[in-house]
């Protein structure tokens, strides 16, 4: 009886239309003719006295051929079961038959549903487990994984008490791609872990019968019954939640917000990024990152972003582990990473784990998808300026896959709209291409190969060409030594170059080039020694090779003196180890140490400058030459990392984080916004590494069953030896850069509030940040002092920052998004007086960054219309309409003064000065 009730409840819950047939008219079973299923049911009801429950639509359309007549109904249904995926449950006491299609009603609750398993501490008779398994597996369908019981580890006669480790991959059933950040846990005792970037999990649980529960965003929750004999591997495929019935959507991260020890980490899924209003038709990772608290930018046409008061070069941007030196296309209007191939973006703002190093402010880890391992698919889109196409599919089914992404401008849409004919004759364009190959060599070895290339070019008045490129290649080999230990070995190459060709006059035609190469090898180990600990350790070595500038004649008539700056070489090596462990149910701790070691390598000429004088060409007293590979200067130091989570109750916690970072490569820029011609410079005898310390404190609380997350995080950051520049310095082709560089100190502090609703028709977040970012430059000489050596606001000091990101789904096919941003205007240097010189009045500037441009306010809207949701359509299309800057406010990007025609004119420049509508068509197949 209990079983029946449960079945009925299940049927109601699943909302399956059920037709109940009562006894009715006399019905004679026609001999030798094919019956429809409805007729068969009717016959059984009328003649055999069953009460029948079945899905009517299904039954109407079928005429099963069976050699057996429904008189012998059990045989009849056994024959057609396989063909039509039809199941029944017979309750003989109630004379009731319930038919189901495609799934089977289970009449027993899973083992241990009401009573927690007590197998932890006693050994269990294997035979009884076996028996239970056999009993459970009666009538279980072949691909009903939830009903089956899996045996893990070599089978033993008796089951020892204690724990064993279980590890494996969680993959998407349709594409074979890893599911990252999925929560894998057992409920009794409550032990869980999350999958890493490879979809790999490993943890220790009590031996014996367990139910693994798996949850992830956008995936159906699934369970696996297992018998864990000893350490073993167990891979699970999760299904995408395409048309979920009335089920609760569970977010993978719902608990990590409060429970995880990590703080200062923001994750954006590519779905979130794509929901945001698109500027000029491109979903944009960096523009999305800017909506997070603590992340700011100088303006709408600025390359890069600023995290918690740090400069742009203090962010390590990793694309599949390879550093990306220029993340912008078209000088900051677009990001150079194609969002279609991205799986996940993580931004570490504080509490940075020990495996990351090399930049002092943040780490942005962009993980790419692996490509579909099951079938060939693709997607693409067409916007006003760009077109995209991505293809993916298996090379060997379930074993190897490829992913190709291509994006390119196809029109000079912007240039066509220019008033100046000179510019109409110019061209501007960019493209980027990604390729990724993933191989599962065997169950313990996987191999990943990545390639990336981006190209930006501008031709100006057909006499000069500006061009910049990013290149990346990386090979990663993941090897599982045992359930408790795996390693990833990576070889990474990354390059950034830019080039300017000019033919304006034959005598002065030139070719200017810059190049930075980054060669890296590293090994990262993850060790799961026993429950509650996760230890990461590894070693990394980066060889930098810079050609900081070459200036060459172009053409036979050019008089340009060929000039090349000396190459720069440096080796950055680091060792790290970190342990994430749970001290108790309520307290978890991460401690890590990274020790980094930097060598400036020859060939190098190191100049000695006279003591007591400002560095200058004229104060050089000595030159030391270092041969190839000879060490000219070394720097090294420990980098401490710590995070502590103290749970207050089930839904709130306090976290404390500290990290120290060292940075040996610096971007040299004296512009207010970062430009693509800014150069990277290695630490050397005169340019010390930047060292940053950050301490942060946060309070986290979830409401409404973890659907609403709130947090408050405060931070204080100190930055030593940040680079600033003497006034008027020319940084391109500068042989003695150290003479124009000043070491400064930076500090930043702030407090970030955030409320986020992850699920539901209306989702999004609201954040407010109050923060300051200040710099102090007080050198020994007048030219090395800025603003009298007092603290002054950095270029990106915007104290108030308010962001609202919201998405609303009207129907399954139609949704709208709105982003609203308010921030204080950035600091600028403003003139304080006018004087006449050389025939014109001119402005005189005083203190740097003493004034501000007007506040920034922008609202972006977008509407997304999906095609219909038939799963088996050959191609799916969707339309996206966006309206950038819907308020039409001409937000000031810069304010400047120009002496022209004998007068001073003041101007404000706005980038998106009025509402800009765009339409994009996206498709996938």
């Amino acid at each position: 009886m209990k079983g029946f009730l449960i079945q009925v409840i299940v049927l109601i819950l699943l909302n399956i239309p059920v037709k109940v047939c009562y006894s009715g008219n006399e019905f004679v079973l026609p001999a030798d003719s094919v019956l429809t299923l409805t007729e068969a049911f009717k016959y059984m009801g009328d003649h055999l006295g069953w009460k029948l429950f079945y899905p009517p639509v299904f039954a109407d359309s079928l005429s099963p051929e069976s050699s057996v007549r429904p008189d012998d109904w059990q045989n009849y249904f056994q024959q057609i079961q396989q063909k039509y995926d039809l199941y029944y449950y017979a309750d003989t006491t109630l004379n009731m038959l319930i038919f189901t299609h495609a799934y089977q009603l289970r009449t027993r609750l899973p083992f241990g549903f009401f009573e927690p398993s007590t197998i932890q501490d006693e050994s269990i008779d294997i035979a009884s487990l076996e028996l239970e398994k056999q009993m459970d597996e009666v009538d279980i369908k072949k691909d009903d994984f939830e009903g089956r019981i899996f045996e893990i580890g070599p089978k033993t006669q008796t089951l020892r008490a204690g724990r064993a480790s279980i590890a494996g991959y969680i993959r998407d059933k349709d594409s074979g791609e890893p599911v990252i950040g999925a929560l894998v846990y057992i409920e009794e005792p409550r032990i869980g872990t999350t999958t890493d970037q490879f979809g790999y999990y490993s943890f220790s649980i009590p031996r014996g019968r367990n139910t693994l529960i798996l949850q992830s965003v956008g995936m159906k929750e699934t369970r696996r019954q297992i018998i864990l004999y000893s350490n073993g591997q167990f891979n699970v495929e999760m299904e995408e939640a395409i048309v979920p019935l009335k089920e609760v959507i569970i977010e993978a991260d719902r608990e990590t917000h409060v429970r995880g020890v990590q703080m200062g980490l923001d994750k954006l899924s590519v779905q979130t990024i794509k929901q945001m209003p698109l500027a000029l038709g491109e979903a944009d990772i960096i523009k999305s990152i800017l909506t997070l608290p603590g992340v700011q930018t100088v303006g709408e046409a600025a390359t890069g972003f600023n995290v918690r008061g740090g400069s742009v070069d203090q962010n390590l941007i990793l694309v599949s582990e390879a550093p990306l030196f220029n993340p912008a296309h078209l000088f900051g209007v677009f990001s150079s990473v194609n969002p279609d191939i991205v799986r996940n973006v993580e931004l570490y703002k504080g509490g940075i784990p020990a495996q990351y190093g090399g930049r002092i402010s943040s780490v942005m880890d962009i993980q790419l998808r692996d490509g579909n391992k099951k079938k060939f698919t693709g997607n693409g889109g067409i916007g006003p300026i760009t077109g995209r196409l991505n293809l993916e599919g298996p090379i060997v089914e379930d074993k190897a896959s490829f992913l190709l992404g291509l994006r390119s401008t196809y029109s000079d849409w912007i240039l066509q709209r220019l008033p100046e004919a000179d510019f109409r004759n110019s061209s501007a364009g960019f493209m980027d291409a990604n390729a990724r190959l993933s191989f599962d060599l065997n169950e313990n070895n996987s191999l990943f190969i990545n390639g990336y290339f981006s190209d930006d070019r501008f031709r100006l008045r057909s006499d000069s060409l500006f061009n910049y490129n990013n290149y990346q290649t990386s090979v990663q080999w993941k090897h599982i030594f045992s359930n408790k230990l795996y390693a990833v070995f990576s070889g990474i190459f990354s390059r950034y170059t830019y080039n300017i060709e000019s033919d304006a006059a034959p005598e002065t035609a030139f070719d200017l080039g810059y190049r930075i190469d980054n060669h890296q090898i590293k090994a990262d180990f993850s060790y799961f020694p026993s429950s509650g600990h996760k230890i990461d350790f590894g070693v990394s070595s980066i060889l930098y090779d810079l050609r900081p500038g070459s200036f060459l004649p172009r053409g036979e008539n050019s008089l340009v003196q060929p000039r090349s700056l000396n190459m720069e070489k440096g080796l950055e090596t680091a060792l790290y180890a970190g342990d994430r462990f749970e001290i108790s149910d309520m307290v978890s701790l991460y401690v890590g140490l990274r020790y980094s070691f930097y060598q400036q390598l020859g060939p190098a000429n190191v100049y000695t400058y006279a003591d007591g004088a400002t560095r200058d060409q004229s104060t050089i007293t000595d030159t030391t030459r270092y041969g190839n590979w000879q060490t000219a200067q070394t720097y090294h130091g420990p980098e401490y990392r710590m995070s502590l989570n103290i749970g207050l109750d089930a839904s709130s916690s306090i976290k404390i984080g500290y990290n120290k970072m060292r940075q040996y490569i610096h971007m040299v820029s004296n512009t207010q916004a970062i430009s693509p011609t800014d150069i990277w410079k290695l630490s050397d005898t005169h340019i010390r590494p930047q060292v940053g310390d950050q301490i942060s404190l946060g309070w986290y609380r979830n409401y409404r069953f973890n659907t609403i997350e709130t947090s408050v995080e405060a931070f204080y950051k100190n930055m030593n030896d940040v680079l600033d520049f003497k006034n008027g310095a020319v940084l391109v082709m500068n042989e003695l850069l150290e003479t124009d560089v000043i070491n400064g100190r930076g500090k930043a502090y702030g407090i970030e509030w955030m409320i986020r609703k992850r699920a539901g028709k209306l989702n999004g977040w609201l954040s407010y940040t109050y923060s300051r970012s200040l710099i102090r430059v007080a050198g020994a000489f007048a030219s090395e002092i800025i603003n009298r050596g007092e603290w002054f606001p950095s270029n990106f000091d915007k104290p108030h920052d308010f962001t609202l990101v919201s998405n609303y789904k009207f129907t399954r096919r139609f949704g709208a998004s709105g982003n609203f941003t308010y921030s204080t205007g950035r600091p600028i240097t403003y003139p304080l007086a006018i004087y006449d010189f050389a025939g014109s009045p001119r402005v005189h500037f005083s203190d740097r960054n003493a004034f501000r441009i007007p506040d920034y306010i922008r609202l972006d809207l977008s509407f997304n219309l999906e095609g219909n949701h038939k799963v088996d359509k050959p191609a799916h299309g969707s339309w996206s309409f966006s309206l950038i800057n819907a308020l039409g406010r001409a937000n000031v990007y810069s304010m400047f003064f120009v002496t022209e025609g004998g007068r001073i004119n003041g101007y404000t420049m706005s980038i998106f000065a009025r509402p800009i509508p765009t339409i994009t068509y996206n498709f996938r197949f």
Partner: protein
Amino acid sequence: MVKKLIYIFQFVALALVNMACLDSFLPESKDFDDLLVVEGKITDLPESNLIRISRSRPLNEPAADFPVQNAVVRIVEDGTSGHQLSEVSPGLYTTNSDVFKGRVGAEYVLHIFLPEKQKNYISKPVRIRQTPPIENLYFEFKEQFVGGAEAPVQGYDIFLDTSDPLGNSKFYRWEYHETWMVNAFFNSYLEFVDNEIRSRTVDISVCYPTSRSTQLLLGTSLNLSEDKIRRQRLAYIDNRTRRLSMAYTMLVRQYVLSPESYEYHRQLQQITENMGTLFDPQPFELVGNMVCEEDPDERVLGYFDAVSVAEKRLWIRRSDVLDFRIPGASFCQADTVPLSGVGEHIRLNFSEVFGEFMPGIYLLAPRSCVDCRNFGPAIRPDYWE
């Protein structure tokens, strides 16, 4: 090269013009910095050299600098012989060309004493370098779009070539002085004086407006294997002005600067003329080579320089160039007015008599169509060919 980059960035800024916009605004004055400004140079020409001393003014102050009067200004040559300058007009001090002339190779220091403030200002020593002659001064036709105009503007680029075979010059600066001839649209032989029409005594149909360069013109051969400057653009003269309607001449002065002086002028150009790109460098306080002896931290604006001069004159005649339509010509329409109405017509319409239509009835037209002195003096300069 830096300039090239700037072009590129301006291009990007303009590339975004469809979305982007540039609004001019009236700067408001924040905390005012009242500073001493010194501008002037010693040349090797047989003429008096000017040193202008003034104070800076607030941002919204339209007038010229506040002149600093009664200063004691001296120039010391090679640390020995001094020469006192005299104030010819408020804040403007000149050398006596009869007794003082700059000399190539000599070193000069400017001394300023302000009796009111009891302060001495002294320049860093400046040495006069030899300036090579201007090799070539020429013009080329160019059509370009300016602003958001529908039709292109037509005009002429003026270019300069120079070189120093010895390779000592490297840093160049140019200034120019231009003069052009304009004709009144109506040639006037009558004038209206004391309610009477009479023959005109002064010819007002041909005038010679002049103008000076207002932008800093700098060039360097530092990156080149030879000390050569090619196709240095000095100006663009287009058909929106009357410069090319009759005849035009430009006198170019070339100076060779010291590296320090070049650097000062380049930075000044950078922060006052080349702003407005997407990637503007951080502007900053720029001080020149004058120091206050009593207070070394006092900032003094401007620069004292000493240069030798090479001059060259360029002529562009009407026959050399396209026949430009004179701007504003359609505005020049004549009215016929009886003698009794002439006075009132002149008063109400700012017009001028230029001829007799029939006895007692006179031809009048807007003043700018009759009197070319609206544009410049009607005195033919002595260098006019």
